[in-house]
């Protein structure tokens, strides 16, 4: 056994790709060796900006010889069958063994040397490496993340010979780009890490990460400050350096007038600097950058250089901030009239107008408890920062900047908060009203121009908007019938297009959007462990579109179907539903055969009219209850159980006490089981049969008041 070292040296690998690359390297290597039957011990993988490396311990010297016997067709089988077998085994006809009239193939494979297997593995790893983006260079066809220059492949102390598109393996690699520019020779896995360390390369990314954490904290503390921890930056800087040297620098405290988020974001995204705070937790005018060299002047020039770059960026940010502060938000909001929201949906100003109306409507209809004027004001200013210079520079700060500008302009806190929070799923009432109105408008507007998400395509992020809407509604326990609300939103949008939009035109989009919400709700609730079929079962009721109540129903339902009563009741329900389906039974007959109990029908009038006929009322009720003429005790027991359970369940549902409603249904379990055990539904007597079918139907309807049990799986 010996250790195997592989290093793939390339030009700089993007920091964000290195973690996955290490995993892919380990996985591909393990796949190659196990496919070849080569035993290996533990595998370590490393990455630096310029190299991906793997060390496999205790790799066997060779694979064992193998002998496989395969039974083939009979010797007198058709030619085709024999040819097929030869093809499969790769043998010639005379190599087959005839054992009592049956062909056998004996395939012997000699053991292979590990170095051959490893050479193949290197070739396959390079060929199949799943970089998120790869490239060609020079005149070659090879693809790698950036140009690949050297391959070090050493098994024990021997070089594993492999050549890939002109790159031949060897023992030489390069040290740190500036500290050790020339080639260095690696002896093998045993000296790889230490030899590189001597050449200013820390191969192990975790060691570099720890070094950055420790040293960054140390230099910050030495400056009397505290490092603002940021694991993302630790990993990124470790992916950008082979010899990380954190250095602290400072910027002019005057820049602290600029919103903290802007400073931190500028430092983080543009420069990959850590931010620092002072004793009071306030942002300090300092930063930590991570250099890749042990500079000849101790890093003074680097820290100063970085400080100048940051100062230029902050000066730019401050310029925008000061410009933005000069422009009142109302004035900015007016400029939204010149920004197209979508070519078919008018300008952003049009959208703001719709959102303002909707947000106010949410308050006036009692859905959100807040001051209507404040909500409308917040909605009217919510998008004003889109024309600010700051958001132009940092689009990800939309809302945050508007919040600061509103505060600076003396707007009420609720308004400033709503502007800041309305892109998310906020919990404060003013913010929630604006956020919900904004999202519902976006969803309805795009659906109304037939721009729905399909498959993986969701260019307007409508799915995210729907999930956020659900979070707002559920998180704030907002009570609204979604269908009605969606129709309102659609009408609001249609109203901007033409006043003559007929109301019925809204039916189709409203129900499509409701389905869309149902799907999103299932996705969102899946994470909370809620079963999607139960959500379907409640949505299938058709009239349940109050998400708060709907989820309460679903929760009670999930608890219920988990109990023994629930499971059995579901079985009974499915049995009843199957019988009704098989018999195509759709309820008390309006036109029935003579002699059976039916409601006389005279003509083509709507049968439901008759149901309301006072003369026939009692008869209809009796038929519908399935009680007329019940003769078996199990029939009677079921009827009385239904008589007791129905009003209980109904009252509980009215009180939104779904657990009690389920409990009422649970009382039907024994009577329905007894009924199925002792009563023949398909009685020869047509009257009995009809009566029993009606009774089963009543049972089904009673259960369906809570949820459509036919949608429940299991």
């Amino acid at each position, binding site marked *: 056994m010996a250790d195997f070292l592989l290093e793939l040296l390339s*030009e*700089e690998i*993007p*920091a*964000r790709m290195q973690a996955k690359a290490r995993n892919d390297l380990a996985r591909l290597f393990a796949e190659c060796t196990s496919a070849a039957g080569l035993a290996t011990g533990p595998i370590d993988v490393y990455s630096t*900006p310029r190299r991906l490396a793997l060390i496999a311990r205790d790799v066997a010297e060779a694979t064992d010889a193998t002998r496989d016997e395969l039974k083939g067709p009979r010797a007198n089988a058709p030619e085709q069958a024999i040819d097929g077998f030869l093809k499969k085994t790769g043998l010639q006809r005379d190599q087959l063994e005839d054992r009592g009239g049956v062909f056998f193939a004996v395939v012997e494979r000699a053991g292979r040397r590990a170095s051959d297997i490893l050479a193949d593995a290197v070739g396959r790893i390079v060929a199949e490496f799943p970089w998120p*983006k*790869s*490239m*060609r*260079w*020079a*005149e070659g066809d090879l693809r790698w*993340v*950036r*140009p690949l*220059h050297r391959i070090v492949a050493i098994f024990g102390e021997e070089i594993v010979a492999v050549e890939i598109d002109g790159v031949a393996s060897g023992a030489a690699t390069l040290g740190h*780009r*500036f*500290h050790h520019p020339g080639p260095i020779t690696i002896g093998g896995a045993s000296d790889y890490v230490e030899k590189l360390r001597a050449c200013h390369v820390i191969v192990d990314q975790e060691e570099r990460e720890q070094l950055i954490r420790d040293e960054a904290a140390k230099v910050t503390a030495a400056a009397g400050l505290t490092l603002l921890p940021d694991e993302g930056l630790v990993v990124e800087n470790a992916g*950008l*350096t082979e010899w990380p040297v954190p250095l602290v620098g400072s910027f002019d405290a005057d820049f602290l007038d600029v919103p903290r988020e802007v400073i931190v974001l500028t430092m983080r995204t543009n*420069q990959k*600097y850590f931010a620092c705070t002072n004793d009071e937790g306030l942002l300090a005018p300092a930063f930590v*950058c991570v*250099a*890749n*060299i042990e*500079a*000849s*002047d101790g890093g003074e*020039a*680097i820290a*100063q*250089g*970085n400080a*100048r*770059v*940051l*100062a*230029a960026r902050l*000066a*730019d940010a401050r*310029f925008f901030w000061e410009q933005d502060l000069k422009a009142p938000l109302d004035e900015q909001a007016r400029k939204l009239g*010149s*920004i*197209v929201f*979508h*070519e078919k949906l008018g300008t952003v100003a049009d959208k703001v107008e719709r959102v303002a109306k909707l947000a106010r409507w949410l308050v006036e209809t009692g859905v959100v408890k807040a001051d209507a004027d404040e909500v409308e004001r917040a909605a009217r200013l919510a998008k004003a920062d889109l024309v600010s210079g700051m958001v132009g520079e940092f689009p990800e700060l939309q809302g945050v900047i508007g919040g600061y500008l509103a505060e600076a302009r003396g707007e009420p806190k609720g308004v400033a908060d709503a502007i800041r929070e309305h892109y998310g799923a906020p919990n404060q009432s003013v913010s929630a009203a604006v956020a919900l109105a904004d999202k519902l408008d976006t969803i309805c507007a795009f659906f109304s121009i037939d721009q729905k998400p399909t498959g993986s395509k969701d260019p307007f992020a409508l799915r995210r908007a729907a999930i956020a809407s659900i979070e707002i509604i559920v998180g704030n326990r907002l009570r609204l019938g979604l269908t009605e609300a969606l129709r309102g939103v659609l009408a609001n949008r249609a109203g901007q297009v033409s006043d003559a939009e007929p109301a019925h035109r809204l039916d189709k989009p409203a129900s499509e959007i409701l389905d869309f919400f149902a799907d999103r709700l299932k996705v969102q609730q899946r994470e909370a462990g809620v079963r999607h079929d139960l959500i379907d079962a409640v949505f299938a009721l058709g009239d349940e579109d109050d998400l708060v109540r709907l989820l309460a129903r679903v929760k009670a339902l999930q608890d219920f179907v988990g109990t023994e009563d629930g499971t059995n009741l579901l079985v009974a329900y499915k049995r009843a539903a199957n019988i009704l389906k098989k018999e195509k039974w759709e309820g008390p007959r309006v036109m029935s055969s003579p002699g059976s109990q039916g409601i006389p029908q005279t003509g083509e009038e709507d049968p439901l009219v008759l149901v309301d006929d006072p003369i026939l009322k009692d008869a209809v009720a009796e038929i519908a209850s399935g009680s007329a003429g019940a003769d078996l005790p199990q029939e009677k027991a079921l009827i009385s159980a239904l008589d007791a359970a129905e009003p209980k369940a109904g009252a509980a549902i009215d009180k939104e006490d779904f657990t009690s409603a389920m409990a009422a249904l649970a009382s039907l379990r024994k009577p329905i089981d007894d009924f199925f055990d002792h009563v023949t539904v398909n009685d020869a007597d047509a009257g009995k049969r009809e009566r029993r079918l009606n009774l089963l139907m009543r049972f089904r309807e009673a259960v369906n008041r809570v949820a459509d049990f036919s949608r429940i799986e299991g």
Partner: protein
Amino acid sequence: MGQSPANSLLTGQFPLSLSFQDLILTLHRYWGAQDCVILQPYDMEMGAGTFHPATVLRALGAEAWRAAYVQPCRRPTDGRYGENPNRLGHYYQYQVVLKPSPDDLQDLYLGSLTEIGIDPLKHDIRFVEDDWESPTLGAWGLGWEVWCDGMEVTQFTYFQQVGGFECKPVTGELTYGLERLAMYIQGVDNVFDLRFNDAGVRYGQIFRENEIEMSTYNFEVADTDTLFDSFRKAAAECERCLTAKLPIPAYEQAIKASHVFNTLQARGVISVAERQAYIGRVRDLAKAACGAWLERAP
């Protein structure tokens, strides 16, 4: 405009720092020695050195090619009336293209930095991922922005596609931001303070008035009807050239349309939705010109 003490200190780090024009001359000498033809700027308005036919058209096809040149870049939306110390509506890029990309391109590039006075053991040089894409040219490549002490000084790209066509062999492209680089080397915080030569002429003396007037023109004065009309005419002319199988003039009209579009953007008369349509139009023109260039008789 005097320099702060900090600046003098920094200047001290580059005791023999190059003037703006010497920076260009040094790069010319360096890349000339690498067998690059030293070209002059293209005589049309463009937003980046990449648009020069010596990059776009020469990146297509099989012939080897090495060139270096300075290209004035016009970015109307970046104009700041000469008030911002770091932003200009008109500035210079130093462009190097090598096809096929040599194996030691990174080392060659780093050699150019040493040549202009940046010591890589004193300054932190880094290759930070930055994939390049030009939607208007239908071009993309992978590479980095090169950082010197946290400042982006060069865009380094291996072209993969230009005009929608695969680049084979691959062209390596280096784009130095000359003003930034000079500011860094000279230790200057304001672009207008750059020493243009060693006889006391500053960058601002030459270009500040230009920035003020061009910003005013691009943001406030440029006649949008005329611009829209120019765009249409350039597009139509491009197509006429394509019909006549003249890829170079066709490509020039695509460049023209691209610049008109940039000015229209600065005038703020193109909405977000329309923007994509205009970019798509320019891209179609550029792609067609590139296609015609590839089809021409060798």
